[in-house]
């Protein structure tokens, strides 16, 4: 075989590199978006995944950590602890507190946990200890970087001064980060000393969450109970309803731009090399052969663009992560496959216009 498509591309190197480069940028954008999405997804469920609770108890209409208000008596913990199969229970309190950090107004996503309990602690501490005392805070690394805070710094919350005692990671909530304090301090800030938002339960070996939940629902019909897996799912759903449409819109725009770019190359080829295509038709090239010449040009351009995008992403992602401290980007094989599939789809769509143009070239035109 003669690689007609490849030769035609190579004859117009500039056009090829512009197309592949543009598609590379589109690919990078899509990879980056998916990476951020995966990062947000993992980040915002990190605490739920790692805080060792097997069951989450919430007020009846609450389903997640991020955007529902749940309050219940702290004393329920003792009741839960007595239930069959439950090893331990610990309450956490979630409040929103507005404050100013270095002059900037900030809404804190504040969690109060009991430092003496094994459940509910922020799981990944990278500086200091999780066992904090009164008036102390644990902040996320990204949060610390964003506000240039280091352990020992103080933040004033509702007139009280809190000292940063530890820095952790994996405490993200979509675009902001959780801040942890003691349960007692959180209750004082709220003004109700015996209230918690959620009870976290851990199970005895051999007990299954489903059975325990069935029993708990009987004794506490006004509360909701979720297994760890369900609660992770709930938090993801909550997050996705907020950000997914934005991601899809950007991805779609990227796709359209990519298709337009990739169409440019074979379309330009058909326009400028009209007489070449007419000649091929005249000397007996079947429609299928010509279709492949176009599709191959699109495909080569797309795959080259994809490779460039992959390389750009690998080079630029670390730089961006340095520049934007709150950002976490997680690259998965799945995302790479999804983007590759999208690029192939784009190649197909991008071939439509040139193929149409090709069908309007008459073999008779070789005589012009």
């Amino acid at each position: 075989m003669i690689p007609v498509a490849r030769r035609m591309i190579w004859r117009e190197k500039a056009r090829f590199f512009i197309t592949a480069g543009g598609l590379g940028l589109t690919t990078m954008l899509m990879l980056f978006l998916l990476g951020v999405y995966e990062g947000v997804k993992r980040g915002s469920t990190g605490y739920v995944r790692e805080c060792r609770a097997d069951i989450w108890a919430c007020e009846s209409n609450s389903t997640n950590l991020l955007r529902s208000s749940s309050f219940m008596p702290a004393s329920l913990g003792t009741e839960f602890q007595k239930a069959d199969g439950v090893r331990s229970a610990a309450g956490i309190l979630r409040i929103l507190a507005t404050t100013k950090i270095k002059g900037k107004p900030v809404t804190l996503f504040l969690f109060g946990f009991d430092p003496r309990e094994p459940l509910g602690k922020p799981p990944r501490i990278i500086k200091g200890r999780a066992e904090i005392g009164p008036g102390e805070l644990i902040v996320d690394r990204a949060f610390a970087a964003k506000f240039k805070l280091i352990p020992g710094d103080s933040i004033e919350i509702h007139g009280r001064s809190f000292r940063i005692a530890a820095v952790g990671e994996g405490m993200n909530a979509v675009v902001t980060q959780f801040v942890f304090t003691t349960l007692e301090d959180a209750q004082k800030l709220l003004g109700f000393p015996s209230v918690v938002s959620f009870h976290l339960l851990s199970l005895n070996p051999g007990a299954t969450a489903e059975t325990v939940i069935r029993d708990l629902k009987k004794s506490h019909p006004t509360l909701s109970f979720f297994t760890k897996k369900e609660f992770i799912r709930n938090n993801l759903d909550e997050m996705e309803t907020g950000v997914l449409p934005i991601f899809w819109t950007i991805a779609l725009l990227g796709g359209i731009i990519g298709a337009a770019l990739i169409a440019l190359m074979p379309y330009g080829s058909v326009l400028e090399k009209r007489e070449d295509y007419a000649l091929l038709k005249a000397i007996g090239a079947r429609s299928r052969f010509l279709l492949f010449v176009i599709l191959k040009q699109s495909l080569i351009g797309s795959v080259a663009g994809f490779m460039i995008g992959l390389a750009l992403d690998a080079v630029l992602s670390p730089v961006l992560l340095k520049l934007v401290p709150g950002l976490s980007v997680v690259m998965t094989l799945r995302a790479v496959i999804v983007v590759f599939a999208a690029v192939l789809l784009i190649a197909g769509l991008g071939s439509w216009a040139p193929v149409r143009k090709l069908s309007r070239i008459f073999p008779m035109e070789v005589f012009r």
Partner: protein
Amino acid sequence: MNDIRHCPMIETENLTKVYFNNSHPSVQAVKDISLKIGQGEIVLISGPNGSGKTTLLSMLGCLLNPHAGTIRICGRDVTALSQKELTEFRLRNIGFIFQNFRLLDSLTVMENVELPLVLAGIRRPVSRDRAAAALEELKMSHRANFYPNVLSGGEKQRVAIARALVNDPAVILADEPTGSLDSNAGQATVQLLREASRKRGKTVIIVSHDERIRHFADRVISMEDGRVKKEERP
């Protein structure tokens, strides 16, 4: 089945072509032409610009449907064939040579000659060997791996002749083959075309208003205003 080798002739009956402009008949480019061309015959169609030569040649080359009349190539009525069948028919049975050479810039000389073989499904190394032999015969072997843009006009046309011959078609059609060449190169090129075709018994139709190549033809058909004005044997 599509192969018409050893068949005697091209035959047209009352061939007519009207070009339409906005669906109003505007130009009657070919009027009522009936021709018989024998196998192995070399025919020159001459006549002034706009006399309908290229239109006639396009119809004989199965690139253009006549408005009325029939074309038989080796007894086969090609006006009855579908587009797809016509494509196949051209590939197997007709070699084309153009005024502007129409070589693909993006392919080497060798690949340009190989192209009709590739389209016919013939693979390397056979296609390569046959293309090499065709180039050899046209004395273009030394340029096989060059791109056409570095060749002279005469060299390009020799490559184009090699491409027209390589698939071993029964009929070779050439539209103003000397039109882009100087006098010497034009004469030499037509001489080569004549020799190569004669040796293989090809039927050749050359359209040209170049008077200096008359003597290469067995028969000269003069056209004027879409009609055959006279026929002579030089």
